[in-house]
């Protein structure tokens, strides 16, 4: 899908309570960190989250995936 104005994908994580598990709850397309925060907050407001954070998908380091959205992050010539 084409992204406008230099948008990229941000993964959204949140935990319900202090000490609770930080869970992946979705993702947003945003042109920068500031708007990624706003979009995540308005799109995933179904809970009174104790903590929410966003991570650019490009910053996620693949461990065992060789296909799917993270496949492109493998170094050139890496095992597919």
């Amino acid at each position, binding site marked *: 899908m084409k992204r*406008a*104005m230099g*948008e990229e994908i941000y993964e959204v994580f949140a935990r319900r309570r202090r000490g609770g598990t930080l869970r992946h709850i979705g993702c*947003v*397309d*945003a*042109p*920068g960190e*500031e*708007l990624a*925060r*706003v*979009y995540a*907050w*308005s*799109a995933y*407001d179904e809970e009174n989250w104790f903590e929410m954070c966003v991570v650019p998908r490009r910053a996620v380091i693949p461990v065992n995936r060789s296909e799917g959205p993270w496949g492109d992050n493998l170094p050139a010539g890496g095992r597919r």
Partner: protein
Amino acid sequence: MTDARPSALSRQILTLADTKRLLGIRYSDWILGSPSIETGIAASSMAQDEWGHSRLLYAMLKEQGFDPFEVEHTRPADRYYSSPALDGPFGDWADFVAGVVVVDGALSIALESLADGGFALARSRIPKMLAEERYHDRFGAGWFGCLTDAGGEAASRVEEAVRSMLPSTLAWLLPDDEPYDELVDGGFAWPSGRVRGLATDRLGTVLARSGIALADVEPDRAGWDPERRRGLGAPGEEAIERARGDRNRDLFVE
């Protein structure tokens, strides 16, 4: 309500409530048709915030001797105290972004001023509104930066939209009249100089990205109506029908 002349405090509450109600309507026009799904969701969230805040503000009028239901649901357009920048719909996305930065930004400053004064209901209820407004500020600053940095038509349109809203919004934010002086003297609002200083600090920093010097912009007080605390004109009839809930009138429940 329609025949009573509101006190300085009631006038301040009314102008905040009406401006939030109209801003919510203008935001809601962009829930569909905004640049992305995420911006549409944010527009929806901000529209609902504004309506929730306006209801809380209207409810504060009860203590001032008004019937909040009557105030919310019966007034004609020319009895609205809202900021003139919201009289018409946002024509394009640049208008929307300018509205978030200029009008919503000014509203937050006016709310902060009221919450810092001697009106107990404002002191207890407004801080939560201001916490929610932080996301509106971030949205506005983020999008203003995107359009400005994009250059070309995007940058010139958003600058034009801001410049068209600023003079009337500054007049709305900084009333130069007796009821406002009375409000300040009563300890219910900050003096204009302090409000202007915060506006220059907060909005001015965002707007400087497009070369707009807020300190150089003069408020446009042409046709100032001290009762409605605003300049000439009134919101469009279609928006007021929605604000009053005319089409739901048979369904109202208390």
